[in-house]
């Protein structure tokens, strides 16, 4: 690929985001901005108890209330499928996971606070809400299952009566390595053990979820407008598995999406409900989540309880890693939930280190809580956190420098096949660590520590590495691992007669800046200005089949499809140019939007060729068709492996336990960079979320399954003054070897790399102050830190 197309706003240009003009001037078109003529409104009646037998739902009073069109209950969905799970994990005995039915509206039992019991459709939202309060629900409350380990005790109350237990699966990876790991632990010179919790989080996208179902009775077509990161996936899952609507009769539109962080990947019951009800009532049906409803219905993230052991020999070489994790699934299996603690987590347990044998055990558990699924990083933050924490603890136990211990064990030769089934194509972990030491001025730490001490504050330095597997994913590989979908991406490039391009892609932006970055790629290949390229996405009716946006995949996979489609365009355009200039195809060169005949001064402009394609008066019709439009699908050969090194400095107030982030530096290797400004923004946002997880955010349930942090009054989101000005660098670039752009992905890195840096820094600060503290569970709230200091 051209190394520098910055002059035309191509690859490498820090172009400002064109979509921000509408986002920042109130001209965005979000799902809730869509209102259909004659639409009705739905309000869901939700369970207020975590677990109970649903003895009856009396809708008579509600149905008679003003404006009420119909009240639906679970019985109305008897002929309809359950909300499906898109990934089947096979357990360590070779058996498939336990997979309960997830009904659109509750059948027989309610299983979490927020479970939908009935749905009131009325002429106005207010009428629907009034009537929802009049639905009489008879629930016989059962004990709630909240704690994962208690859920697995023999005789525990079962979330799903038809399953043998609350265990979804017991996964071992790599099962064949289990004995070797045991042996390595036994013969190790030193074993460091750490028990920790990866705290449960709520995504809290700025835009709550919205769904609008519409039905055209004349054509028999259904349309769903929804807040989704992947409209085609919703069309496939809802059409094929829930409602039985073939894809050509179902259109899914996700217009502007205001943040997702994973929580808008999944197919939710409300989407199926609105699509179903629109047809049943022959009118558009709209649902907009209230914020408090989002807290108890959007899939939550993380929620792992882990014990990790790291074995080292007498030369401080890592000899084995063993980890045992309990992963909360919540009450039902959300779309990709089973894959998160397994294939997105276990495969990353090698980290940046040449540990020869690794064994990962994960027990996934059903509880009476909101379903848990992917959240920015999805499995990889959980892997990085435990590994980087245990390495830090080992360094402290052994009295060696944490950076030196890491460097000593770095993988330095690539490609590198890990003992956990993946092969890193490229990387240079010493280079990112060197860069980190430079940009973070780590050698100046002691002086800064002394300055903090003068203010009565304990300063600490936390350093860690991370690696992630992005560009999800090779379809044949994920198929073997249990995915019930392919994970390719597509692009259609349509060149107009006057030379402008429209690129239709199956990936979708929920804040990533695709409308700016993708044109940079395509324009760069042709040598035209990026403003000549427009992106269309988010509508299954006018984009080719695609798998959407998550797992830092859109540029690596979707961008690669665009490259392939554009290559086809260029190949055909060269044929047209050859005809126009009466030269051989093979002699045609394309540079800066001009086709020329090699070795001559003959040339035709891009626009002449595109015009000829659509006005084929002088055109090789016997050889090629008119028009200039090509589609390509790209299925990646491997994951990509972004990696980096992060440093965080904190100041701890020993009197109150309050932790302040004093500085944060990130040195990332994302391979090639298309738009460095967007990459900076992605890293900033990711670190902000990671600091949120490390210091503030926590979804807390009480023993009855009530969400105690069910509003922003109790769920602490990071605010601007909770985060520092970041120092980020992505000049260390080892391009990906297997995609045409050499890109790796940057969307999740910050959220993966930052939590261990923060916790390492706090532990460092406390240990330097003489406290015998080896770990504090996230979030490191003032009260937790104070309690640790004073216990």
């Amino acid at each position: 690929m051209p190394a520098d197309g910055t002059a035309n706003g191509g690859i490498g240009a820090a172009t400002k985001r064109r979509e921000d003009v509408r986002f920042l001037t109130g001209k965005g078109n979000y799902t809730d901005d869509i209102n259909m003529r004659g639409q009705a409104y739905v309000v869901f009646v939700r369970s207020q108890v975590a677990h109970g037998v649903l003895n009856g739902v009396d809708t008579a009073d509600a149905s008679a209330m003003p404006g009420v069109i119909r009240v639906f209950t679970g019985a109305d969905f008897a002929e309809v499928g359950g909300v499906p799970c898109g990934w089947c994990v096979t357990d360590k005995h070779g058996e498939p996971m336990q997979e309960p039915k997830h009904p659109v509206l509750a059948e027989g039992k309610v299983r979490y606070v927020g479970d939908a019991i009935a749905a009131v459709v009325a002429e106005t939202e207010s009428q629907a809400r009034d009537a929802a309060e009049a639905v009489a629900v008879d629930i016989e409350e059962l004990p709630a299952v909240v704690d994962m380990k208690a859920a697995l005790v023999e005789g525990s109350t079962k979330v799903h009566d038809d399953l043998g237990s609350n265990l979804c699966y017991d996964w071992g990876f790599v099962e064949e390595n289990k004995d070797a790991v045991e042996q390595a632990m036994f013969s190790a010179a030193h074993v460091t053990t750490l028990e920790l919790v990866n705290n449960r989080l709520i995504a809290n996208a700025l835009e709550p979820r919205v769904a609008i179902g519409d039905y055209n009775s004349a054509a028999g077509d259904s349309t769903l407008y929804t807040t989704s990161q992947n409209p085609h996936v919703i069309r496939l899952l809802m059409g094929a598995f829930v409602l039985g609507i073939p894809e050509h009769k179902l259109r899914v539109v996700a217009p502007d999406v205001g943040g997702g962080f994973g929580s808008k990947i999944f197919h939710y019951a409300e989407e199926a409900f609105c699509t179903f009800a629109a047809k049943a009532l022959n009118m558009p049906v709209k649902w907009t989540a209230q914020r408090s409803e989002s807290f108890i219905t959007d899939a939550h993230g993380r929620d792992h309880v882990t014990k990790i052991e790291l074995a080292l020999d007498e030369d401080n070489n890592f000899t084995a890693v063993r980890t045992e994790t309990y992963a909360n699934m919540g009450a039902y299996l959300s779309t990709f939930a089973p894959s998160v603690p397994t294939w997105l987590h276990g495969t990353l347990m090698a980290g940046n280190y040449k540990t020869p044998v690794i064994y990962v055990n994960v027990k996934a558990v059903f509880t009476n809580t909101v379903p848990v699924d992917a959240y920015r990083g999805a499995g990889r933050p959980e892997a990085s956190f435990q590994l980087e924490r245990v390495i830090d603890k080992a360094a402290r136990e052994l009295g060696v420098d944490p950076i030196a211990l890491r460097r000593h064990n770095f993988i330095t030769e690539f490609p590198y096949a890990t003992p956990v089934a993946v092969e890193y194509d490229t990387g240079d972990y010493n280079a990112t660590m060197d860069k980190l030491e430079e940009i973070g001025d780590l050698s100046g730490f002691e002086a800064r520590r002394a300055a903090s001490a003068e203010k009565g504050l304990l300063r600490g330095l936390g350093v860690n590495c991370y690696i992630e597997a992005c560009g999800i994913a090779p379809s044949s590989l994920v198929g073997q691992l249990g995915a019930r979908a392919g994970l390719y991406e597509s692009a259609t490039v349509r060149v107009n007669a006057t030379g402008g391009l429209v690129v239709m892609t199956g990936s979708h932006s929920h804040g990533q800046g695709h409308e700016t970055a993708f044109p940079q790629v395509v324009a760069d290949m042709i040598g035209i200005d990026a403003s000549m390229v427009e992106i269309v996405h988010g509508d299954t009716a006018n984009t080719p089949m695609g798998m959407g946006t998550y797992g830092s995949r859109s540029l690596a996979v979707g961008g690669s499809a665009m490259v392939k489609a554009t290559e086809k365009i260029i190949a055909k355009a060269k044929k047209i140019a050859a005809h126009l200039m009466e030269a051989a195809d093979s002699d045609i060169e394309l540079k800066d939007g001009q086709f020329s005949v090699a070795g001559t001064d003959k040339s035709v402009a891009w626009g002449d060729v595109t015009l000829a394609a659509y006005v084929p008066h002088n055109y090789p019709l016997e050889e090629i068709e008119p028009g200039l439009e090509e589609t390509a699908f790209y299925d990646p050969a491997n994951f990509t492996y972004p990696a980096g090194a992060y440093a965080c400095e904190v100041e701890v107030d020993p009197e109150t336990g309050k932790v302040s982030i004093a500085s944060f530096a990130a040195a990332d290797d994302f391979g090639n960079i298309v738009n460095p400004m967007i990459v900076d923004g992605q890293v900033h946002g990711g670190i902000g979320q990671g600091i949120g997880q490390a210091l503030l955010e926590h979804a807390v349930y009480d023993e009855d399954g009530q969400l105690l942090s069910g509003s922003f009054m109790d769920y602490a989101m990071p605010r601007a003054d909770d985060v520092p000005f970041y120092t980020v660098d992505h000049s260390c670039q080892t391009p990906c070897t297997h995609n045409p752009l050499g890109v790796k992905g940057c969307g999740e890195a910050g959220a993966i790399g930052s939590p261990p840096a923060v916790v390492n820094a706090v532990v460092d600060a406390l240990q330097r102050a003489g406290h015998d503290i080896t770990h504090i569970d996230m979030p490191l709230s003032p009260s937790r830190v104070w309690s640790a200091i004073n216990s």
Partner: protein
Amino acid sequence: MYAFDIKRPSKLKKARKILKKNEGAQVLGGGQTLIPTLKQRLAAPSALVSLARIDELKGIRQKGDELIIGAASTHEEVAADGTIAALSSLAGGIGDPAVRARGTIGGSLANNDPSACYPAAALGLCATIVTNKRKISADEFFTGLFETALRDGEIIKAVNFPIPEAAAYEKFDQPASRFALVGVFVSQCKGDVRVAVTGASEDGVFRWADAEAALAENFNPAALEGLSVDPAGMIADIHGSPEYRAHLIGVMAKRAVAAAG
């Protein structure tokens, strides 16, 4: 939100009349607690009587050695006043700019949220709460969690603050809401020392008598060394234990005394 009528009288007497006539009517100050409550359908008043257009509730003025703050004064207005620096600083630390532009001192005191800041200032400065009926000393005004001495239909007109020789407010934020996990207001006024604590107690704002006695002897943070608050009766929630809150009272009190001195 349930449907309700809204009345916007321009005279306090008219507001009183409307309240008398409409059973279930409720006074609306800045609405920073009431409106979210209505949105969640946790209250269903028949009517709201807004005080926003009543001029006699507005304005901040000094009269002798007192600062008289109209009940409808917003946090923003109090923050900008500066006559009592500690009070203005407290008001400027409530919520965010949007909250401060709407929320009022009268509304906050009448609501008496156990984590609100203003009750600490009123109690910590021995303010007088002036209603349409009477004058109530802050010592008598706060009667428990979300409870005050206000009777049905009684409306706060103004709050009279003695101007202290020294005062400061130190607040430790609850990480999510940024209400006071613990807030301590200390003042020295005509030889009288007060230490009022908000955010911590299950009974709402209270005076820390031991600290007041110690500081009356010696208004210096060192005077508080060795003093502690009994965790019994302190709030326990996901943000802090009773022990943590009791500890923070001591820390915040010392910092407030240091800031006041």
